[in-house]
Structures are given as C-alpha cells and as structure tokens.
C-alpha cells in the first residue's frame, strides 16, 4: 500500500524529516506518536503533497506508483486521504456539493461515470449518521462556522463518503471532548476494511484505546525511533517521550 524509504523533507530550509522509513500493508492500522515538533504532521503534509514542504530526498510508493510524481489532486483521486489537523473553511461552497465534486473527480480519474444523485444522497445521509454529523451541516458551506468538534467529525465524514485506500488522520483527536472522540473513532472503525489502511497521527494514547492499531511507531526529531505493537502505546503512556529522546533510528 504505502512504502516510505529514507524520506528527508524540510520547510523554509529547516530540515524536519531526517530519514523516515515506514511500510503500511493493506488493511493495517498504524499509529505514529511523538512529542510536539517531532515531524509527525510534516510527514502527513508531505504525503498529501502540500507545496510549502520540500522533499529533499527519499522515495514514497503508493499502490505501486511514485507518489512524488503525482500532484496532490491525483494522489487524492488515487485514494490517499488526509484528515486535516485544522480543517479549512470554504465559505460559499456547500458541504455535500463539495463532496460530490470530490467523489466525481475520483470517479472520472478511474473512467467511471458520475455518481447518480439518489445513490449519492443515500450515501451522504448514511455516512453522516456514522459519525454523528448533524444533517444541517451537509448543506452548510464546508467547515464555515463549524465548531472544533464539528470540523473533526466533518473530516471523518469526508473520509466515510470518499472511501479512500489510505486515510492519514493528522491529530484528529486533538481538541475533542469524549463524545466527539467516540463518534470519530466509531466512524473510523466502521471504515476499517481488509483493503483500507490507516495512518493515525496522534500525541496521546487516548485515541488508541478507541481505535486499536496494529502497529505503533514513535517519532522523535524527524525519525521513527521505535516500532512495535499496540503495547508500545501503553509503554509510552507510562514512561513519556523523554525515554525515547536519546534513541537513534530503529
């Protein structure tokens, strides 16, 4: 599904990622944890193709294609989804209209016809329920005037409608109360599928008690310094990140 090899990336000439290695297979759920400034969010932005980050070296293959040869919209259409840490407001653009355009762009890229309005409506209603998104938010402009919790639910709602192959969730849990966190986790768990992979980026272990990962990675200063099973998250919770500060890349 995704293979990251020796990835180096910088922002405004400051190196952030310093040789990231990671492989994600189909159906796997990976979590990357790490302290603030370790490069977790940078990794998600680089994978999605944010132009404010510069890839210095390394290679990423996504479903057998060289990711860095694809512009961001092609990556999205090929099934790479990023749930934003800070979802962006798009005034004037109706949320479900936006999703329909997104869905149809992916379908067009696969040579499929546009989704018919009835199926689309059905899908949208059903998935909104999955994440507990209020129906009224479907007709409102994308994220405009949404509360913090509503914005995060809306990201998971987009994920549920677009059905990507790989979903990267960048600190989706931050700033959520317990009910919203549960709703978000329910949505993600519903979307788990042998053909769909997840990369959860989080600061806290909390999310991982709702979404059980197959693998946990610890990122420190732009490198993955330790990888393990879900028990690693518990260890982190006990010892904190300080214990990993001195470790070199695994």
């Amino acid at each position, binding site marked *: 599904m995704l293979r990251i090899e020796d990835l180096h990336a910088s922002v405004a000439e400051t190196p952030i990622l310093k040789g990231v290695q990671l492989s994600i297979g189909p159906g796997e759920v990976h979590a990357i944890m790490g302290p603030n400034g370790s490069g977790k969010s940078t990794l998600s932005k680089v994978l*999605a*193709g*944010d*132009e*404010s980050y510069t890839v210095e070296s390394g290679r990423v293959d996504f479903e057998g294609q060289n990711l860095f040869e694809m*512009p*961001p*919209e092609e990556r*999205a*259409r090929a099934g790479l*989804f*990023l749930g*934003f840490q800070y*979802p*962006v*407001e*798009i*005034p*004037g*653009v*109706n949320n479900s*209209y*936006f*999703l329909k*355009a*997104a*869905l*149809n*762009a*992916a379908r*067009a*890229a696969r040579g499929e016809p*546009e989704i018919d309005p009835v199926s689309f409506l059905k899908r949208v209603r059903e998935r909104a329920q999955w994440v507990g998104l209020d129906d009224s938010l479907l007709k409102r*402009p994308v994220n405009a005037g949404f509360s913090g919790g509503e914005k995060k639910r809306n990201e998971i709602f*987009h994920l549920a409608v*677009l059905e990507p192959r790989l979903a990267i969730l960048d600190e989706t849990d931050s700033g959520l109360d317990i009910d919203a966190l549960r709703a978000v986790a329910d949505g993600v768990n519903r979307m788990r599928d042998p053909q769909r992979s997840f990369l959860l980026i989080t600061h806290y272990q909390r999310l991982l008690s709702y979404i059980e990962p197959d693998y946990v990675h610890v990122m420190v200063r732009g490198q993955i310094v330790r990888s393990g099973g879900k028990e690693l998250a518990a260890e982190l919770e006990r010892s904190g990140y300080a214990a990993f500060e001195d470790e070199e890349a695994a």
Partner: protein
Amino acid sequence: MAADKSDEALEGLAQRGYSAGFYTDIEQEFAPPGLDESTIRFISDKKREPAWMLEWRLEAYRNWLGMTAPQWQKVRFAPIDFQAISYYAAPKRGPASLDEVDPKLLETYAKLGIPLHEQKMLAGVQEQEPAPGTAAGETTKPRVAVDAVFDSVSVTTTFKEELARSGVIFCSISEALRDHPELVRRYIGTVVSRRDNFFAALNSAVFSDGSFVYIPEGVECPMELSTYFRINAGHTGQFERTLIIAERGSSVSYLEGCTAPQRDEHQLHAAVVELIAHEDARIKYSTVQNWYPGDEQGRGGVYNFVTKRGLCAGARSKISWTQVETGSAITWKYPSCVLQGDDSQGEFYSVAVTRGRQQADTGTKMIHIGRNTRSQILSKGVSADDADQTYRGLVKILPSAAGARNYSQCDSMLLSDRCGAHTFPYLDVRHPSAQLEHEATTSRISDEQIFYCKQRGISEEDAVSMIVNGFCKEVFQELPMEFAVEAQKLLEITLENSVG
C-alpha cells in the same frame, strides 16, 4: 458541474476566454462615420420617425455639444474620437418578418445560444404547444420571448402575438415609435433626461434601436421577456434605448444579454434604460453582460458606458436590478432606483468580474423620496490579473422619506496580488428616522483553501470556480433559472487560468 469541462469552455480558453468573439460576414448598411445634425436626421429618417422624435433628438444633441465627458470615475482610457464612430449599422436585408431575416444572422444568434433559435417557434409554424412525444426537458423549459438587436436595429421579436393577447406590448423601440407613439412620447426621457449626463445625452441624440415593453394594468406578463444585444460591425457604436412601463398592479421580468466580436479597436456602447413602475407594479431587470473585454495588453474591447434607472412612481411598487458583468474593457454603470412612491422598494444585486486589463466602476444609486421606502444593495466584485474594480454607490434619503431603510453589502474577492478592489459607498441622509446598514468585506482565496480542495481530488481550476461561484451565489439566486446557469458557465470560462 465544475468537473465537466465542456467543449465550449475549451474553445473559450483558446480564445483567451472569450467565446463570443466571432464576426458575422453579413451585408450591412452604414452611416458614414462622424456626428452632426445630418447624422441624426439620417437615423431618424431611416427609422421613419415622427417629427417630434427628430426634434427631441436634435435638442439632446445640442445639449450634448455643451457637455463634457465625466472625469470622476476611477478608470483610465484615451479620449474617444466621436467623429470616428459610425452611428448606424444595419443588416441590409430588411427584417420585415422572420422569414426574411438573413440566415447568417440567425446563425449568429444560434452560435450565441439564444433561445430565439428554437427553430420550431421561428419556422413560421408558430407551434406554441410542444408536439406530443417531444423530450420532457423541452416541455418543462420556460418559454422566453426574445427581441434581438443586431448593431443598430432590432431584427426580430418572438411570441409577439401571444403577448398581445394579454395586452403586453413587446417590440423594438423603432416599432413602438410607429405603432404606439403616444406611449413612447409620454415616457421617454422622464426617468433619464436628455441632460442627465454626457453619454445619456449622446444616446438620446443617436439611439438607433432597443426594446420597448408595456404591461397593462393588472397583468402579470405571461413569460420572461428578453433582449439580446450584439455588436457586430467594426467602428460602430451601439446606442440602444430600452423603455419598460409597468402599469398599476402589473409585473414583468426582463432579461438582457450582450456580446460583441473580438476587435482591435475599442467599441462604444452607450445605452439608456428607463423603467417606470406604477402603483403596486413590479419590474425585475436582469443583465448578463459579456461584451468583448479586449486582449491581455488592453487592446480592443467594448466601452460599456450605460445609464440605467428605474422610477418607482407608484406606492408599493418595486424595481429589482440584477447584473452579472464579466465583459467589456471598461464598464461604468449604476443601475439606480428612484423610490418616489410610498412603501416602494428598490433592489440591486451585482456580480462584476474583471481580469486582464479590464476596468469596472459600477454600483447603484438608491434615491429615497417616498415614506417607508426600502432599498437593498448586494454587490460582489471579483478581480484577477491586473484588473481594477470599483464599487460606487449612493444612498440618498430625502427629507420627505420618513422611515426609509437601506441595507448595503459590498464584498470583494481578489485573485491576484496585482489587481485592485475599491469601495466608495456614499450616504446622504436628510431624515432622522432613516435606518442604514452597510457591510463590506475583502477576501482572497488562500493557499490553504486550494490545498484542501486538491487533497479532496478537486483541481485548482475547479476549486477556484467553486469558491468564486459560492461567493457570488446570493446574486445568482436572484437571476431567472436559465440565466443563472449561463452566468455560472460564463464565470467559469472567464476565470480559466486566473489564479497562479
């Protein structure tokens, strides 16, 4: 919608975004360039006008000679040589009836996608009801009566007879001068006088055609009325005059569309539109203006200097202007409402899009005279490339206008760091009970917004068009359905490659 890029759009792109830039090779009759009293006599004679009309024109011309072109607007252009313009151009083959219309002319309108070319209606069969078995889409399509004006003359008006049955008069102003001279004489120049401004005076002297609408008392006009204006000939000015009268308790929705071929020289379009709404009457006037904007260096393009004004003469009357302005090298127009009747209402909804070297100085005037008069202004300006745009509006509350209210909102969106947006809202309030609200915003499309859209699989172009359409939505909602779709398409074509 955004995702499917039609062939039309691509063709438009190939022509730097202007898809109506073709020229029709048609035999035309011209007045020689230049302007003096003999030119005016020539035009009046061509149109076989009554003597009073000629006198009216000549007086306007004498007014005009003593006037100077306005300087206060925020646009730059070289002085216009009024002696280099031809003031009359007409297709040579007379448009006496539709059968006689030059087929090339019909082709032109067909290219422009004008419903006029719905052949069934035009083939002379006058088949009003769709035959059984026609596509469902056609039966539900609202019917629109069209008056088409090609350079200086009106070439055809559809649905005339059906309209006449309900007493509605919809014809070219030349015909109105022949068939209903008393109505024209009573109303022409009563809202926009011959001395109103430099270009209105010029228009009064030389106007060659335009549309005339009369809705009798209590009649709700049974269909949308529409005029398409087309400048075709080179070195020609278009000076059309539109006059719409809605008698007590009547209502009408009127649409106007405009295009011109791509030419290297500037073409002058100086129209006058007058609306009169009597007691309880409603007039809705919508414009989609797509005159040729000129090329990237600012060569060519139409100067769109237009005076549009409506008089809410009677109590509880209402006039609503909606405009979508994407074309012209320079636009200045201020569709206005004079709210004379008590409880009358004026509305102005506008989307103006400028790119390349286009300049627009546009807005409205709301003159409150009657008691409890209300007005609403909603202006959306979008600028890209090196374009410059100004919203200029006046809300005037006279001492007689107790209880007047106004709400104004002016929003600008900038798509490049070289373009400009300016807002000049003038308020002149002479009654203490007036309530006025004004809101203004300026926004840009951020890189974060574009990236977010791309991350969902939406291309940058579609993202921009979506966001701009969203920005303009409240205004588009005011347009009749078919026009709203056209306006959206036009916006997409206009904004191709405008962000970068």
